[in-house]
Each structure stands twice: as C-alpha cells, then as structure tokens.
C-alpha cells in the first residue's frame, strides 16, 4: 500500500504528468499513422529515456504504448485504414458507421472502450504483478531456462503465419545472441575482432534496426505517397450517450478480461486479442447480423480488448523478464538501460520506479480519453503526412537513437545491418518478433541452461521432478503442437 501511495505521489509531479500527456499524444499520432506501430514508437523513444530519470522515462514509454494502441482506431474508423494490426477489426464496423454519418459516435465509442480496457488491464497489472513476482522467487535456473524457451516457442506459434519461418527467426536470434565474451570461460565468440561486439550484440540498436529502420524502408518502397482517401467529415457528437453505454458495458468488461489475459500470454498481442474478442462478442450477441455493418458492440469489443493488452503484456515482463509481445520486448530494453532487472527486485529494491510505472498507466489512459475525445478530428491529419517525408525522419531518429546508448558509430552500423535484415524478413514473411526475443532471451537460455546442467551434474532429467518445470514443459509442447498444426494446415 505504501508503494502504491508513493507511486501516486510520483505520478502527480508536474514533470511526470507533462511527460505522460506528451507521450500519450505522441503515441496516438504514431498509432494513427498506417505503417507505423506502437513497437516502433516505443523503440525510437527508448534511447531518449537513457538520459532521463528512470521513473520519467518509463512513464513516457508506458504512455506511448497506451496511446499508440488506441491511435490506430482513428484512421481505422475514418479512413478504413487500421493504424496498427490490432485495429483491423475496428475498421470493419467503425468505417461502416462512418459511412452512415456516425463517425463521431464511432470515435467516441472507440475512445471510451480503449480507456476502460486500458484501465482494467492497468488494475490487473497492479494486482497480479506483485504476488507473481513473489512467486517467481521459487524459480531456479531450470525454471528460468524453460520459461525463456517457452517465451520463444509461444511467440513463434502464435504470431507466425508460417511457424517454420518463425522458428528460423527465433533460433537465428539465439545464435546471434551467442556473440561476445563467454563469461564462464572467457572465450571471445563471433566478435570478428570488433570491440563493439565484446559484450554481445547490443540489444537496442538491433531492435531499432529490426523494427524502425526496416519499416522506414518498407513504407517508401512503393511510391504511394499519402493515403489517397477522402476523409469523412465528423458531423455527429463524439460523446457516447447513456443508451450506448447500456448496450456496450458487458462487452467492454468481457473484452477487457480477454485482452488482459491474452496480453499476459507471451506471444499473443493486440491482433489476437481483438480477433478473439470480436468473435466472442459476435457469438454471444443477440444481434450478430449487425456485426460488420456498423455495430457499436463489435467496435467496443475490438477496442477495449486491444488496449487491455497493454497492462497484461507488462505482467510477465516485470515479474519474470519474459516480454508479452514485441512492444514489451522493447520495454525490456528500456528497463535494462536503467539497470532495472525484471523480477522480484523490481518490486522491492526498485519498488518506487515499478509502482510509479504501474500507476502512470492509469493516468496515461485518462490522457488517452481526454485527448482522444478532444482531438480525434485532428489526429487523423497525421495519416496525411507523406511517407516520403516520414521515412527520412524515422531513419534519422533511428540513427540518433542507436548512437545515444554507447556513443558508438559501430552501433549505428549494426542498426543499419539489422534494418536490412528486418526488411528482407518482412518481404519474405519472416516475423521479426521471434528474432527479437531470441536476441533478448538467448543469453538467458544459455546461462540458465548451464547453471541447470551444473546443478544436475550434466543431465536435464531431474527437471521432471520439479512441478513448475513440468508445467513449462507441457506448455512448450503445447506451443509446438500449435505450430505443427499450422504447418500441416499450410501444406493442405
């Protein structure tokens, strides 16, 4: 309780309130631009937080995350162009409402639903994370090893349309993560004589390259310029009416629960949450024929669930160090640059920072509600920025961001290389999320495997005597089974 009060006190500092507001606005703008994503928005800002106070920096990242996930709904509703993949289902009914002259109502429902979903998941984070962190004290090297493996296998099975490619990306990330000094023995591995690789592949430049630079190239490869769609005018009121709330409150609650749970599962993100919630809402609706034709229930299910992922995805990250999705993988980078290691220590020794971050998400969602309702009409204009202007700006930010950490031009070149790799991967349907996790979790997999082998004198069989390990093994097998089913389905 004392930590929560401390968190509230910290959030109410003028500097932090200002940063949360700015972060939310930036996030909404990034989310509203098709081609950009919450992952990119957070990735570009992480290096900036290096020079900030950790509390302020993490509050900003959380605000950007919440804003970006919501921002995509604006263009999804007004232009039928989802700003992020998690807003695809939003566009189905949102745009239909726009065609009927109800664009304002659609934006209002979307904003309110996102607010409730995000707030619900922030509450879940606050309630679940501390006890889970305490539970993780029971984790030894075998549990942490299997947890890291599970993190990679589940993200492959859930986010890869072609699991073989997902596994290749993940294992390639793990292989690359072996670069650097082997701390146990002292050997230099795969450094090619480069000082910049002695400590391993630096995570942030590689992530910025994979996520931001690759996207900057992707958005200009076709000379599409800006979105050539006439923007619908908002003629009706944005504020939802009492009758609207009566229709959608159950859907919002159910979708928020679904989104939070899916956010907690590593690998499942906003897209999965929005599709599952949409289907669930349709299944349980008395009027499911309206779905796809401008149903406010459909719209609210999509938006509340995708924003509910935000808090949920931070649960495994803060407690176990396992990112719930690509955005939280980048968030991990934000924690590490401030010397904050996920786990129980985050809630004890660094409790002030962690609780302030969790409380700040509530305020980020309030900011989202306010700016969304007031400024939705304005935010849609960011989608009109030409990609030919946007791309060079993103590239220059990526260069600066990758240099800022270690003041190293080598890191910038590394970012460039990973940017090319990321572009090639995207063009050939290789998901980048497994590679990101492979790079981040690879060192954990190796170090905990070594410790486990050391404890069990060279054999891994004793892990089956540990109940938590058995659960993880079952989960790994299940995630591999999901991948196998997809492979068989792809062949048919």
């Amino acid at each position, binding site marked *: 309780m004392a930590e929560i009060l401390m968190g509230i006190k910290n959030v109410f500092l003028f500097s932090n309130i200002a940063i949360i507001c700015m972060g939310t606005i930036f996030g909404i703008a990034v989310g509203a631009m*098709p081609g950009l994503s919450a992952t990119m928005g957070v990735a570009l800002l992480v*290096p*900036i937080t290096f*020079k*900030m106070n950790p509390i302020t920096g993490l509050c900003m990242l959380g605000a950007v995350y919440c804003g970006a996930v919501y921002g995509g709904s604006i263009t999804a509703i007004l232009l039928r162009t*989802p700003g992020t*993949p998690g807003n*695809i289902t939003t566009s189905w009914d949102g745009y239909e409402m726009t065609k009927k002259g109800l664009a304002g109502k659609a934006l209002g429902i979307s904003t309110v639903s996102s607010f409730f979903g995000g707030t619900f998941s922030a509450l879940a984070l606050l309630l679940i994370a501390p006890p889970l962190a305490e539970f993780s004290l029971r984790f030894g090297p075998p549990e942490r090893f299997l947890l890291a493996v599970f993190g990679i296998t589940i993200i492959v099975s859930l986010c890869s349309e*072609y699991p*073989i*490619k997902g596994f*290749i990306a993940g*294992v*390639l990330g*793990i*292989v690359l993560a*072996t670069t650097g000094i*082997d701390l*146990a*023995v002292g*050997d230099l*591995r*795969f450094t090619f004589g480069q000082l910049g690789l002695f400590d391993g592949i630096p995570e942030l430049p590689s992530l910025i390259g994979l996520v931001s*630079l690759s996207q*900057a*190239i992707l958005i*200009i*490869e*076709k*000379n599409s310029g800006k979105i050539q769609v006439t923007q619908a005018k908002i003629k009706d009121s944005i504020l939802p009416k009492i009758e609207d709330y009566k229709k959608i409150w159950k859907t919002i609650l159910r979708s928020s629960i679904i989104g939070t749970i899916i956010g907690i599962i590593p690998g499942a993100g906003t897209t999965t949450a929005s599709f599952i919630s949409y289907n669930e809402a349709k299944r349980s609706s008395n009027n499911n024929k309206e779905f796809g034709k401008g149903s406010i229930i459909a719209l609210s299910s999509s938006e509340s669930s995708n924003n509910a992922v935000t808090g949920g995805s931070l649960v495994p990250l803060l407690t176990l160090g396992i990112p719930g999705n690509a955005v939280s993988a980048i968030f991990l980078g934000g924690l590490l640059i401030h010397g904050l290691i996920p786990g129980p220590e985050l809630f004890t020794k660094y409790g002030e920072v962690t609780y302030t971050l969790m409380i700040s998400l509530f305020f980020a969602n309030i900011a989202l509600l306010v700016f969304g309702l007031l400024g939705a009409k304005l935010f849609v204009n960011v989608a009109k920025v*030409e990609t*030919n*202007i946007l*791309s*060079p*700006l993103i*590239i*220059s*930010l990526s*260069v*600066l961001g990758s*240099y*800022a950490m270690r*003041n190293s*031009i080598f890191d*910038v*070149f590394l970012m*460039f290389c990973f*940017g090319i790799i990321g*572009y*090639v991967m995207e*063009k*050939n*349907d290789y998901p980048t999320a497994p590679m990101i996790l492979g790079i981040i979790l690879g060192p954990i997999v*190796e170090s905990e*495997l*070594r410790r486990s082998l050391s404890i069990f004198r060279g054999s891994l069989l004793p892990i089956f005597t540990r109940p938590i390990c058995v659960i993880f093994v079952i989960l790994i097998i299940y995630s591999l089974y999901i991948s196998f089913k997809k492979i068989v389905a*792809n*062949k*048919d």
Partner: protein
Amino acid sequence: MKRTGDKIISVVLFIFCALYFYLSLSFSVQSRAYPQATIVLLFFLLILLFLSTFSKKKKLSTIKVNENNKDKVILSRVVGVIFITLLFIFLIGKIGFYITTEFFLVGTMYFLGIRSYKILLLVPSGFTLLLFIGFKLLLEVSTPTGILF
C-alpha cells in the same frame, strides 16, 4: 510462401551456419557446445524450409491488409534510400550529426520525389532544430561530432 526468396534465404543461411560452425571450432569445448547446438538446430530448420519450397501443393497466398496490388515495389527507391542512409551513417562521424542530418533529410526527400521547396527547406530545418533542442540542450544526449557540427 515466396519460394524463390525462401530458397535464396535458405542458401544464405546455410552458408552462415557453415561459417559460424567453422568459427566455433576455435573456441574451447565448453564455450562452443551451446552455439554449435543452436547452429545445428538452425541447420535442421533450414533443411525443412528448403525442402518445403519444392512441395507440389501450393498454399493460396493470403491477401495482406496493407497490400495494394496496383502499387509495385520500386527497387530503385529501396536501393537508393539504403545507399543514402549508409552514406549518412558514414558521414555523421566525419562532418557532424546535425549538418549531415540536414543534408540527409533534404537529399532523401528530394530523391523520394518531394519537390516543394517549402517542405524541402522547412521540414529538415525544423526537425533538425527539434533534435538539437530536445537531445542536445534538454536531454544532453551525445551526438556524433565531426569537423563541423
């Protein structure tokens, strides 16, 4: 699946695996065990991928949300931006970040087809100024310095 691309990627990664495996032989036994195991796993996955490109059964390609069949990829734009970016990275350490960024932004936008002088003047200048104020003055983030600024 894009079969030709997959074949090329498989071959490139086969070479990568062979190279890395060869390099790992120079490590001590304890140090090379884990990298070699992961390289072998990767090799196995690549074999599966390579073989799948010869499969007779085709999966109908799914239509991606963002794919517009009317817009084709213009390779010269991609190659051009990559080359300009590489030059930018090379020059920031020689000339200085802010001056190079200004020229990079103007040059890249012009290359990509922006012809409005207003945009070519105002956007790079405004953005570089924003970076300077935000990073240099407020956050005191170091930027590459060269002979200029």
